């Protein structure tokens, strides 16, 4: 319910250990933002600084334009929900939800009114007299969220709240969290190491690695225009494939094979200075067209199926490409279209799904880093 601005924020422990370095991003009022990164990337430290659980070494954090660096967690009025529900087992659901208001000395009839309102919203109004332990996991999470949200927080912070649940519960929780965010018009920041969770749930992502911001953008921006090779590989499962290639001209790239080369056109314009030089071609496993027969008129490169990993709806094929390096390529196909080990196939790349990298740097879509 507030706009959140993170400006040049850093955290240094003991004057030496840099946990977070110069992080800048904004979370708009009503936005659902994920902070995504591997363990040790600084994402939880960033969250803790927003919550006020951790001092800010440098930079500032603003809620609706007002600096909150010096404010205590309760003064910041933040809802924090962690993976465990941390409900009081000896209290009824009603008393659990009412707890933060009673602690503030809110008047009795007002407590009742607000508990009823939030309980109705989160669909726990029919279990108010029960104990938390008698509820399902989904029910307990809703009670826990009710308690966190009853203070009408400025910002809701969720730290890996559902990553360790089984897949059934996770699907339920995901839907609930998203629904509640929209219904109550919350401003939500969700911290996770799970890229699939972040991509599914959130409007925009803040990707972190090694204590630093890598990219801020919508899911589509991060998927289609990753700021560097780290983001390209961290988001997407299985990860993006990389193939050694040569830039033929500003709109064609070639892969050398035993018998010559295959030239692929791509959308966009590569900078002149790379023409003629070696380049890394990136292509996502989900964005490769696989054909068991050669398609006329469309450039393709052959490969042979080495492994088939069935995953249910999909299968992941690992192919040995018939380029000079025999590069290993993953291709996602529908589960009922399984290939057989040893089978040869031809791979086509869609011209708008080709990524080109010079070392770590993407060269096709230029400066994509945005911290808006």
């Amino acid at each position: 319910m507030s706009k959140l601005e993170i400006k040049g924020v850093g955290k240094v422990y003991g004057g030496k250990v840099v946990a977070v370095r110069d992080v800048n991003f904004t979370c708009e009022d009503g936005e659902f933002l994920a902070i995504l990164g591997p363990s040790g990337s600084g994402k939880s430290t960033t969250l803790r600084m927003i919550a006020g659980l951790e001092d800010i070494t440098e930079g500032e954090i603003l809620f609706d334009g007002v600096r909150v660096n010096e404010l205590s967690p309760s003064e910041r009025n933040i809802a924090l929900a962690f993976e465990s529900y941390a409900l009081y087992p000896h209290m009824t659901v009603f008393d659990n939800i009412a707890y933060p208001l009673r602690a503030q000395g809110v008047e009795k009839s007002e407590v009742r009114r607000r508990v009823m309102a939030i309980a109705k919203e989160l669909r726990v109004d029919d279990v108010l007299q029960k104990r938390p332990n008698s509820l399902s996991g989904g029910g307990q999470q809703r009670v826990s969220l009710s308690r966190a949200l009853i203070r009408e927080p400025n910002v809701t912070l969720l730290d890996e709240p559902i990553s360790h649940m089984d897949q059934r519960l996770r699907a339920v929780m995901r839907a609930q969290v998203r629904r509640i965010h929209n219904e109550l018009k919350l401003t939500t920041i969700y911290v996770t190491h799970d890229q699939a969770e972040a991509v599914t749930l959130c409007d925009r992502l803040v990707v972190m690695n090694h204590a630093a911001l890598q990219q801020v953008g919508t899911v589509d921006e991060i998927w289609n225009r990753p700021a560097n090779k780290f983001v390209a590989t961290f988001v997407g499962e299985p990860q993006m494939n990389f193939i050694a290639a040569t830039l033929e001209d500003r709109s064609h790239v070639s892969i050398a094979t035993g018998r010559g080369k295959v030239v692929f056109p791509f959308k966009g314009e590569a900078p002149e200075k790379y023409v003629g030089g070696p380049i890394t071609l990136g292509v996502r496993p989900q964005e490769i067209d696989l054909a068991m027969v050669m398609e006329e008129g469309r450039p393709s490169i052959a490969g042979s199926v080495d492994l088939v990993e069935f995953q249910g709806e999909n299968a992941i094929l690992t192919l040995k490409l018939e380029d000079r390096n025999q590069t290993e390529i993953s291709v996602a196909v529908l589960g009922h279209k399984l290939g057989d080990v040893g089978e040869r196939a031809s791979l086509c790349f869609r011209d708008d799904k080709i990524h080109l990298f010079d070392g770590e740097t993407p060269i096709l879509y230029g400066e994509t880093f945005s911290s808006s």
Partner: protein
Amino acid sequence: MAGVRLEHVTKAYGKKIAVEDLNMEFKEGELFSIVGAAGAGKSTILKMIAGIEKPTSGTIYFNERSVNDLPPQRRNVAMAFETYNLYPHLTVYKNIAFPLTTPKARANLTRRQERERVEEIAEFLGIKRLLDRKPVQLSGGEKQRVSLARAMVRKAQVYLLDEPIAHLDARLKFSTQKSLKRMSRKMGTAIIYVTHDYREALGLSNRVAVLNRGRVEQVGTPKEIFDTPATDFVARFIGDPPTNLMDGEILKKDGQTCFRTANFDIEIQEDLLEPLESVVEKEGGKSTVRMGIRSFHIRVAGEKKSRNAFQLPIYAIFRTPEGTMLTFELENSFLQVSLEGQADFGMSDKVWLDFDQEHMLFFKKTIKIAKM
């Protein structure tokens, strides 16, 4: 074919039955996964095959010969566990080579052969560069691969792997899984792989057994397990999102057999009537059944397109680069629908749902469906 076979094997600890009446066959050259939740009895099975635990009743055969009375050291079984148990004072090389240093192994193996064997397996698992290090210098994921290498270095009758990659991060899991698959193909020995993660089981294995509270729910190829789950437990345990399950009534309407849930009537295809018959239960004069349908076997449209379609408001909606996930509330439970591409709907929109009738699955009610 030679291999390992379990015949009517039961293991009880006092009154508590860990596994009951197991009949399984692990063929030579096969990678067989046993998947189930914690406490399902997976590790008990491995321990009985290894000879660490004795079956309470039933027989275990190696190459059609009962091994019930053979001690572990005479069974020629190699094991790797979730915990690493590496020798801290030995290098990685010596840890891996350890099973080859028994007098018997020594007599059959020159030093050079030993080095070749160790290096080959280390190469397979991507730890060759670590051979001179000590365990204390390794990350958890590296230790786990060393432990796995040590189990796989020796020629054994059967390899027993108990959650051997549980501590690896997602990327390493994928690559280690691939290595295991290639190794299995090369070795031609039975590998029994225990995991709680259905994805690993499906992706890796030739066949899978789904275990629930000490009993086998289903044995089959990954595709069989996914496409035609034998029970409601398997349907819900395998897949993300899991199979949608809903209880309903079977009734006749204008001569047509229908499944009724939440006042919606869905016609049942002619060829499903026979399998349906075997699972229908009588409850208070009604014929009831549990119906399952995968999230991608449901169509969604803005208007009514078939007479079986029914209308529901969207509870939550997720857009990912690869598709759209919709959640609906139905009878106190959530219905998950996944669509290809971007759907043009918003939260709370009322839309028409249509089940792919040929993909409706019918079950007896053996598990409790938790409410949302």
